[in-house]
């Protein structure tokens, strides 16, 4: 379980995450939504110990991420951010192999190679496995990095806007993959999503943030409602039921 207790982060005078107390107890896929600057990515970074909190604490299975050894956390939690700039020249297989580092400490055994091969197949990266990252399109590279996070084989998987750079088909494929990881492999996935309809369609729980605070939390049926979303984004939103899922229409 991921919990935060009065978690706070400031950049200069502005408070980006404002005393967020949150409990993500539900297994499955949790989506963080909200307008730009709401603090979604920062909240994810704080939980993933990529940023230091200015106040409060984030706990993963009761372990404070600020004080627990990073290498111990790495076996429980993987976090993937948006920017993937690499100076080193790596093949896709090398990159995915790095996901095994917390387990292999750089000396991969047959078990690690099996996991890498499995992840490559799951993400349909077999054909690209020996290509270098700088030879790939943005979407392919995105998938390679997601594959690395999956290869880390952690219970918690934190992803910051994994659908960036992806076209419709690939975005759906990634969400379906996360769904599979949650349902079949028992992973707990926390994902920052821009597209609220992806959140509505694929997640078990949605946390809506605005101005660094949690304004709504619950299953899609509770959060994907016109009054919640209009309040959240400040634009008129209508919600329709299509094929058993709630779809928000907000194009004005």
């Amino acid at each position, binding site marked *: 379980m991921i919990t935060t207790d009065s978690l706070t982060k400031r950049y200069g005078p502005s408070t980006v995450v404002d005393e967020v107390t949150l409990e993500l107890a539900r297994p499955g896929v949790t989506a963080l939504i909200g307008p730009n600057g709401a603090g979604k990515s920062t909240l994810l970074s704080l939980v*993933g*110990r*990529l940023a230091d909190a200015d106040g409060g604490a984030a706990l993963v299975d009761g372990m404070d991420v600020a004080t627990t*050894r*990073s*290498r*111990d*956390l*790495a*076996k429980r*939690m*993987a*976090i*993937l*951010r948006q*920017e993937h*700039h*690499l*100076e*080193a*020249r*790596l093949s896709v297989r*090398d990159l995915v192999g*790095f*996901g095994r*580092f*917390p387990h292999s*400490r*750089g*000396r991969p055994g047959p078990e690690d190679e099996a996991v890498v091969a499995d992840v490559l197949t*799951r*993400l*349909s990266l077999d*054909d*690209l496995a020996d290509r*270098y990252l*700088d*030879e*790939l*399109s943005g*979407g*392919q590279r995105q*998938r390679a990095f997601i594959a*690395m*996070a999956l290869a*880390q084989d952690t219970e918690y998987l934190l992803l910051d806007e994994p659908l960036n750079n992806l*076209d419709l*088909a*690939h975005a759906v*494929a990634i969400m*379906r*993959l996360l769904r*599979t990881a949650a349902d079949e492999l028992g992973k707990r996935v926390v994902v920052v999503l821009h597209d609220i309809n992806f959140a509505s369609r694929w997640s078990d729980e949605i946390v809506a943030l605005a101005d660094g605070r949690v304004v709504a939390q619950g299953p899609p049926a509770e959060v994907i409602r016109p009054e919640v979303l209009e309040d959240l984004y400040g634009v008129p939103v209508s919600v329709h039921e299509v094929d058993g899922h709630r779809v928000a229409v907000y194009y004005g």
Partner: protein
Amino acid sequence: MSADLAAPTPTRRRRRKKQDAGGARAAARRPGLITGVALTVAVLACAGFVLVDLPGAWEYALRLRLRTVAALVLVAVAVAVSTVLFQTVTANRILTPGLMGFDALYLLVQTAVVFFAGAGALGGAAGGGIAGSLLWLVEVGVMVVLITALSRWLLLGARRDLQIVVLVGVVVGTLLRSVTTILQRMLDPASFAVLQDSFFASFGTVEEDLLTISAVVVLATLAVLLAFRHVFDVLALGREAATSLGVDHRRAVLWVMVAVAVLVSVSTALVGPITFFGLLVANLAYVAVGHAHRWSIPAASAFAVITLVVGQWLLDRVFDFGTGLSIIIELGGGVLFLALLLGRARL
């Protein structure tokens, strides 16, 4: 999750990229072989430098040449390894400790010692002996503290642009050199002469005591660093990915900077500042064997040894004009630096 995941890439773009990468790609497939060959050539070059064409009074010549080769190898390894690691933790291929003014810092420390403690202190260092070695160790200690503080501020503070770090490095380097110059102006001529002598010790004339202690320090540092080669590979993925994989990024970077400070002190103490040499051999290694540190560290070292030893041999025995090797290497490295910078600007 089926075949529809494989995104269609515009063929034209793929082909162009492939051509660009062609040569490096073929080479990087066999990094072990290339590293092995480079190391063998490096050893052969050293042996050749020492043994080929020994004059009649061979005992004296042998001793002199061994000393020169030892200095060349130590400097080569120190510069190559410090550059590769520095570039790994700063996630770039252009910045080097030399460019960041780390060696200027060493010169300042050295000048400050003469300024405040008198030329006698440095004379002791140059003359060798226990006092000299101790003084040198103190200087290295000061370097480690200053560089760690500098990198804390520059590399680990607010996230900074590479361009800004380069700019700050150049400015800090200039500042350090100016302060050094001011202190030197205020020295009496005799002290200044001793100091000057210690700066421009060339590859041919290095004190034996300094050599011994440098060798111990470099070997010890190298042994520790090679044990952490896998961690460096992870560090090269950047702060966020490394953290996710369980590497304490801040601590790792600080330790690497300590090692870099030690190695820069060794090479600067032995032969004075060399700015672009590290850039040259590190990038050569990346092209030849890729970025995995188990190959890039030995390969860059081997390339550095080959460059220095063969260069020195050519200068000594073919062109017959003693010193000046660093000038030629700096020319090559400087051209590469400009090429890399321009290449990046185009991207």
